[in-house]
């Protein structure tokens, strides 16, 4: 009896144990994966790993743009129990009195929207207040917000971002791929109180790459301040300043006026303040372009600084049109080529240009980087305009020699003047110094003119800031030697289709002369009257900016210390360097709509070659002389008839000052 009971009891226990074991096996083996998945779903939360957008620094490591985490308040308008109460509550908690929140909520609710951002960038105190509200129709989202701690400094260089922190202008747009980070994902195992116990990365976060610019914030500040003051003082419409290192191409400052604050960008996309006048707005440069004309003359002709140029009585007649000097003084007469630049003689420039010839001038204009993009990483850069040679008219050579019938940008002028400053190399301007820790690649410089040509031009340009020059005394620096060229170009009025009496006043200069550390180009648009000439409007800005830049760079003075010379306005009427515009009968260069100046081939690193001797074999004397004149070559004819012999032979490179002897016979 007892044994039977024991057996029964034992059997019951065994069954019970077996049931337990079966259930355990079912849970641990059969349904393990499914249950583990359910457990993970309950226990794990997915957290986004923020990847802040890369910061932008100036060359000295000062932050110009940074991203900070921020929080935004959002609501579901469809779930709002009472729009008025909700609006009142939110306005009170988020300090948004008078913001029209009720109207926005009402409109969103009527449109059936389920999501509305109430306020972005709330403070931590406001976030706490919102979290303390016992409502379920309000939510707080984490995001990132871009800050520009220097305000409007370098606004056109930096650009800006939209609400999604995607670059929409400037460096922010050009380098958006590098600056934009990639958020990651993290899985966190939590306890019942939702506290994290362990975590593992599902996707690694990749923060944005920081960018270091070549901009120096101190020089940028000085350039912007002086530019704004000059535009206000001269009642100009806009302006730009570029400060560049001629040897490395580093853009130390790039200012454009009017400007804006990227922290509060203009609402409208086409606002004038967003236009970058330094890179995106081409203009006819005027007399400052004579530097290119004379450089080409030194390279391709036997003209020298002391070569006399007949400027006549202040006028020249070309193809039925009479062109006068800017100043009706009775002309400069016969002056040296150096004085042509010093006084900015239009007649002299035209005569020099005619010696250079169309082909050579076109080639050198292209070699100096005009009508091509400089390669700066700034969206919206203009390449300017230069008509292709077949489209040149009879007066194009004269116009372009004076800096009309061609449109350039301020940065292109800086690039061109840097060629003179650094000894003849075209150095591409650059804005990015480093990407992360890696130095940004630099383009190889290309030789444009011979070193002696560059040195000669520097001395010719020095005369511009000396007594008698169009840039004296405003452009003369205290304690430093300087060189430059003024420019005053009439502005074409598209409404009246003629040139108005407004000027683009510019000054392109370098300092110090023996080994220029900086090139500064200043342009003021729509100046008026005598005070609006390049020497009176733009040169003072060059003076202040260059002086400050040299001090910041700690460049030793190369002129003896003397009593501080205040750059006072000259009591005499300033020398006019106004270029004569409107020589051609066709449409203005700025009205050209087609991309006529598409670069056929980039100017690559060709070794410098002088002019080559053409083949005059079988040509009459008249044809030989005409062809030589068109190329700027000097021919010594001998005999009569047709050309039989010549020295140097055809195709050889002509040395500087060398003349071609041609023997004619019947």
């Amino acid at each position, binding site marked *: 009896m007892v044994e039977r009971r024991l057996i029964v009891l034992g059997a019951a226990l065994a069954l019970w144990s077996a049931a337990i074991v079966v259930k355990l096996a079912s849970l641990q083996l059969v349904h393990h994966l499914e249950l583990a998945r359910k457990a993970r779903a309950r226990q794990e939360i997915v957290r986004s790993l923020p990847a*802040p957008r890369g910061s932008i620094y100036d060359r*000295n490591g*000062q*932050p110009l743009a*940074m*991203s*900070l*985490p921020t929080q935004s308040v959002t609501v579901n308008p469809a779930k709002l129990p009472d729009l008025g109460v909700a609006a009142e509550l939110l306005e009170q908690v988020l300090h948004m009195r008078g913001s029209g929140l009720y109207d926005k909520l009402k409109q969103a609710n009527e449109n059936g929207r389920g999501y509305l951002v109430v306020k972005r960038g709330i403070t931590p105190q406001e976030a706490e207040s919102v979290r303390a509200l016992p409502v379920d129709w309000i939510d707080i989202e984490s995001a990132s917000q871009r*800050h520009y*701690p*220097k*305000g409007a*400094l370098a606004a056109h260089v930096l650009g800006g971002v939209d609400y999604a922190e995607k670059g929409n202008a400037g460096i922010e747009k050009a380098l958006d791929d590098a600056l934009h980070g990639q958020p990651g994902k993290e899985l*966190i*195992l939590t306890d019942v109180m939702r*506290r*994290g*116990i*362990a*975590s593992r990365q599902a996707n690694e976060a990749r923060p944005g790459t920081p960018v270091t610019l070549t901009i120096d*914030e*101190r020089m*940028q*500040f000085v350039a912007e*301040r002086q530019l704004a003051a000059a535009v206000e003082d001269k009642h100009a419409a806009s302006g730009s300043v570029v400060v560049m290192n001629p040897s490395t191409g580093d853009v130390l400052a790039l200012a454009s006026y009017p400007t804006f604050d990227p922290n509060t960008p203009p609402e409208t996309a086409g606002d004038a303040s967003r236009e970058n006048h330094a890179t995106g707005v081409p203009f006819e440069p005027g007399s400052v372009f004579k530097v290119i004309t004379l450089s080409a003359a030194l390279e391709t002709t036997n003209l020298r600084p002391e070569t006399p140029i007949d400027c006549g009585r202040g006028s020249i007649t070309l193809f039925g049109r009479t062109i006068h000097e800017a100043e009706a003084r009775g002309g400069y007469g016969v002056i040296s080529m150096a004085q042509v630049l010093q006084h900015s003689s239009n007649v002299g420039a035209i005569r020099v240009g005619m010696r250079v010839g169309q082909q050579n001038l076109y080639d050198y204009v292209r070699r100096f980087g005009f009508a091509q993009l400089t390669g700066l990483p700034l969206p919206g850069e203009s390449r300017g305009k230069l008509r292709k040679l077949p489209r040149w008219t009879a007066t194009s050579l004269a116009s372009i020699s004076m800096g009309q019938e061609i449109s350039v940008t301020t940065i292109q002028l800086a690039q061109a003047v840097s060629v003179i400053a650094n000894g003849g190399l075209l150095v591409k301007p650059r804005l990015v110094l480093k990407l992360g820790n890696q130095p940004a690649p630099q383009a190889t410089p290309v030789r444009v003119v011979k070193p002696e040509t560059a040195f000669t031009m520097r001395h010719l340009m020095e005369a511009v800031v000396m007594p008698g020059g169009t840039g004296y005394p405003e452009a003369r*620096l*205290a*304690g*430093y030697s300087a060189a430059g060229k003024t420019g005053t170009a009439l502005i074409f009025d598209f409404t009246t289709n003629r040139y108005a009496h407004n000027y683009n006043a510019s000054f392109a200069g370098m300092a110090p002369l023996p080994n220029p550390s900086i090139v500064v180009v200043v342009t003021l648009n729509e100046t008026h009257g005598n005070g609006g000439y390049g020497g009176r409007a733009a040169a003072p800005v060059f003076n202040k900016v260059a*002086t*400050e830049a*040299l*001090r910041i760079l*700690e460049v030793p*003075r190369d002129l003896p*210390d*003397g009593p*501080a010379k205040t750059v006072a306005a000259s009591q005499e009427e300033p020398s006019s360097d106004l270029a004569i515009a409107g020589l051609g009968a066709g449409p203005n260069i700025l009205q050209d709509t087609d991309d006529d100046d598409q670069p056929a081939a980039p100017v690559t690193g060709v070794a410098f070659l002088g002019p080559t001797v053409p083949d005059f074999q079988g040509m009459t004397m008249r044809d030989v002389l005409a062809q030589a004149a068109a190329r700027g070559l000097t021919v010594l004819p001998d005999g009569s008839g047709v050309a039989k012999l010549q020295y140097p032979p055809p195709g050889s490179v002509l040395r500087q000052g060398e003349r071609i002897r041609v023997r004619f016979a019947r």
Partner: protein
Amino acid sequence: MATLPAIFTWMGATRPEAQAKPAQSRAERDPYRLRALPQENVFFFCKKIDNGRLVREPDPQAKSACWSAIGVASLAVAILAGVLVPGAASTISGYRLESLRAEERRLLDEGRTLDLQEAELLSPDRLDRLAHNQNLVTPKSDQVFHLEGNQPDAAVAMVKKQ
């Protein structure tokens, strides 16, 4: 209730057979038997047993068995601890780690906020206004003497405006 049995007993005691039996019953009664319950056939016996003179014989194997049991139990506890403690420590470390990570994130964000504030305070526009308020002007080129050479952080004296 006890009165009736006493009466019956008296009545039976008068009978001759009853007079002979009580002496014999009394002599055979177990000395350990407790007084019987009335009208019950259940008898209780109570006997005092003095085991004080009993001495347990020492078991030579008990000691080793005891130690073995202690050892096994300790081992089991150690194994259990070895299995459970790392998990618990891991969980506690996990709490600590997550809180440290949250603290790191907070400090990084705070650092960035401070960097931004520093940059705003060092804005050239602000410094210029402060200098202007202090009647400080930028020195002219002939008033600048570079004491430490061409170094980025070389000090430059500011000139007070007279």
